[in-house]
């Protein structure tokens, strides 16, 4: 216990150095947890369980940009093990202009509710959508994002197809298993087909399978039906289909992991440097401790423990901070955007205080004081601006319905980051601590730091 308080006092002795070290670890850990959370969101999403496992996507083997005849619907439905099948066409329409991106599909409405049975929608709204050819249903989050109301008519500008459907919103659905699915609009395939002069082409079919064990077999059976036809198909699980998109982006996993590694190495250098400096400055004290009878092992623990505490503090601030920051942005961005100002103030306050503290000076000259006040205000302004930019950027990305919708830091990543911080604390201090604790008393007392 006494050792612990000595450790703590040591860490606080040069409080500015400790705070700076903790902050640089915190910022780096914040970055690492962001990167790792991106990897995890892209490659290991949470919603691979449950009903998504029973869903298959059938598209052309040569790629999703090519279409198949709509008559494939019946042939797929006849495959043993297939429960329901609907045509699902990526329409790619723009709402007002290109900056308002969201997913919109033309789908078969009859069996829609059976295929997407994880969606919750009021029965009367579902019926209203089915009965009106120009009706659409919209996810709750998308509805909130554009402040649409039921009965409102919106126009989508076709970018792939040369038509601009006018759609009336007749229903709102929610997806309790994965709120990121709520950023989509669905309208009638029949309506699109009619506008395209009954060309009866379909981009992909979404297939519901009876039970999970059958999924791979059913996929093979569907593809076998169309084997050696002019339009061969590829049927895969929703997850595999999504990973196909991810792989088109390139090797993100490698890029993000490599950056994370570089950041880990940077904090290792930063903490290592700080600990080496402060241990070297204390060589004399170590000798005194030894003279008093402290064992080598105890002194080693004292020094490594100090680094561990500092690194862990940085880790906690960084990782828990990241978890909080992304949670806060997600929670407020669509519904209570003015709270973004609160977020910016939370960044501005420490930034202003930092400027105030760093411009501290023993001098009492008026010029020095003015500089200090000016710097504090500037610090606040910069912090505020950074906060707003960050809030808007992250909020915009995570509500656009791409890969990072509903972005959050998984607890596993938080734990991993704390592990990294602890490891950095130990590795970076072990060598200077070993050297200091092994030094001869007489030499150490004579050492001029």
């Amino acid at each position, binding site marked *: 216990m006494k050792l612990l308080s000595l450790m703590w006092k040591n860490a606080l002795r040069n409080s500015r150095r400790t705070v700076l070290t903790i902050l640089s670890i915190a*910022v780096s850990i914040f*970055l690492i947890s962001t990167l790792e959370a991106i990897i995890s969101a892209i490659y290991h999403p949470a919603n691979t369980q449950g009903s998504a496992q029973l869903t298959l996507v059938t598209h052309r083997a040569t*790629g999703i940009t090519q279409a198949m005849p709509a008559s494939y619907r019946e042939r797929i439905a006849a495959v043993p093990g297939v429960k329901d099948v609907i045509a699902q066409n990526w329409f790619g329409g723009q709402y007002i202009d*290109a900056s308002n991106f969201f997913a919109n599909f033309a789908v078969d409405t009859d069996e829609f509710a059976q295929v997407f049975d994880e969606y919750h929608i009021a029965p009367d709204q579902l019926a209203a959508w089915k009965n009106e050819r120009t009706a659409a249903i919209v996810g709750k989050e998308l509805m909130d994002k554009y402040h649409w109301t039921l009965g409102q008519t919106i126009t989508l500008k076709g970018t792939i197809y040369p038509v601009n459907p006018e759609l009336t919103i007749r229903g709102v659905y929610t997806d309790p298993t994965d709120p990121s699915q709520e950023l989509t609009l669905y309208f009638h395939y029949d309506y699109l087909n009619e506008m395209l002069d009954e060309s009866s082409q379909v981009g992909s079919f979404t297939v519901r399978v009876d039970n999970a064990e059958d999924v791979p077999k059913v996929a093979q059976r569907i593809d076998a039906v169309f084997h050696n036809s002019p339009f061969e198909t590829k049927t895969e699980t929703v997850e595999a289909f999504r990973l196909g998109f991810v792989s*088109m982006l390139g090797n993100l996993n490698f890029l993000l992991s490599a950056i994370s590694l570089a950041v880990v190495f940077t904090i290792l250098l930063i903490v290592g440097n700080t600990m080496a400096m402060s241990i070297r*400055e204390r060589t004399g004290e170590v000798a005194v401790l030894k003279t008093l009878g402290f064992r080598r092992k105890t002194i080693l623990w004292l020094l490594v423990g100090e680094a561990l505490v500092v690194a862990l503090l940085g880790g906690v601030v960084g990782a828990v901070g990241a978890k909080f920051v992304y949670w806060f942005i997600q929670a407020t961005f669509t519904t209570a955007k003015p709270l973004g100002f609160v977020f910016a103030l939370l960044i501005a306050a420490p930034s202003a205080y930092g400027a105030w503290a*760093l411009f501290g000076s023993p001098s009492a000259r008026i010029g020095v004081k003015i500089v200090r006040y000016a710097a504090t205000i500037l610090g606040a302004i910069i912090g505020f601006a950074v906060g707003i930019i960050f809030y808007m950027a992250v909020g915009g990305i995570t509500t656009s319905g791409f890969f990072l919708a509903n972005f959050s830091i998984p607890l596993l990543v938080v734990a991993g980051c704390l592990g990294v911080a602890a490891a950095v604390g130990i590795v970076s201090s072990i060598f200077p601590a070993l050297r200091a604790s092994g030094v001869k008393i007489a030499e150490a007392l004579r050492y001029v730091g």
Partner: protein
Amino acid sequence: MAIPLKYNLRNLIVRRTTTLTTALSITLTVAVFVILMALAGGLQSALTATGNPLNVMIMREGSQSEAVSFVSHENYQIIRYLHGIATDKSGNPMADPEEIILVNFKRIGQTQGSNVTIRGVGPDGAALRPEFQLVEGRMFRPGMREVIVSKQLSERFQDCALGDKIKFAKGYWTVVGIFTAGRSAYNSEIWTNVDDLAADFDRPDYTEVVARATSPAAVKQIEDEANNDRRLHLKTETELAYYQTQTSAAAPIKGFGIFIAVLMAVGASFAAMNTMYAAVARRTKEIGTLRAVGFSRRSVLFSFVLESVVIALIGGIIGCLIALPVNGITTGTTNFTTFSEITFNFRVTPELFIVGIIFALLMGLFGGFFPAWRASHESIVTALRS
């Protein structure tokens, strides 16, 4: 009067371990920054390096990329005889119909694929793109199910080497040639004959028409005539403008790179700050002495900032050198405007080098300023007594 630089350099050498670790944390920050910017720069340059200002692309009204356009054969006959179109070697109008089809191919060593652009070109396809150069094999012959593949694609995708057979549409196609196209986006394509491709994919229409204007004024003339012809319902865009609008594809990488660089820079400059505060603390007596012999506060401030900047400069230079080997490495991503693979090279340019060094200097400046400020305000008497 300024304190000699030698004073700082010697101090840095005496504390070489600290100097080096601090410099290295700046090194890593600069290296990551330069590499990410080289990635964004490479992608951007592949798009800006594409497109001839005299080539006019004629596409369906409202299509945002080539891939979703179509132009009927009748309309092609109208476009061919618009005024202002250059004539080719054989005396025909230099206006070729083209067919664009995206096919999913597998990258080498991967099970997941990416959409590759297959471009069916007419007789003037190569002449319209002066950067096109056949480097291996020969040109495809119409009607023979032959293709030529860009060098970058053939190195990155399965079954795309010279002599290989690749499968798409109704059967196998033979790779008979390998081409390069400067730094342009055509480096990410497979070319074949336009009619072969259209027939194999049962396309009743062409995708677009590419026409070469005789002069910049003729570009305007072609565009006006095409837009005013009520039979056409087409849009015109110069090839240069078409690719220029796609350069926004590099923006997310840039934004991401800046986000990472800024966070890393905060960490690294705090480290520099720690180092410099320690340096100031150890040398309080020296500072007092310097001030006592007549050096001004400003000289002291300047001297310590300079010391920090020198550390950062060392870090920055090493960082740029570490990033240098990625220059020229080929990589690829999907261009979401066209929804197809674009391959490009990392580009570490001299400008990027300078930006990297400036970035390092800023870290040094930020990290060194506060400790130097502290040092310059030390009162002479207390400093000498410490």
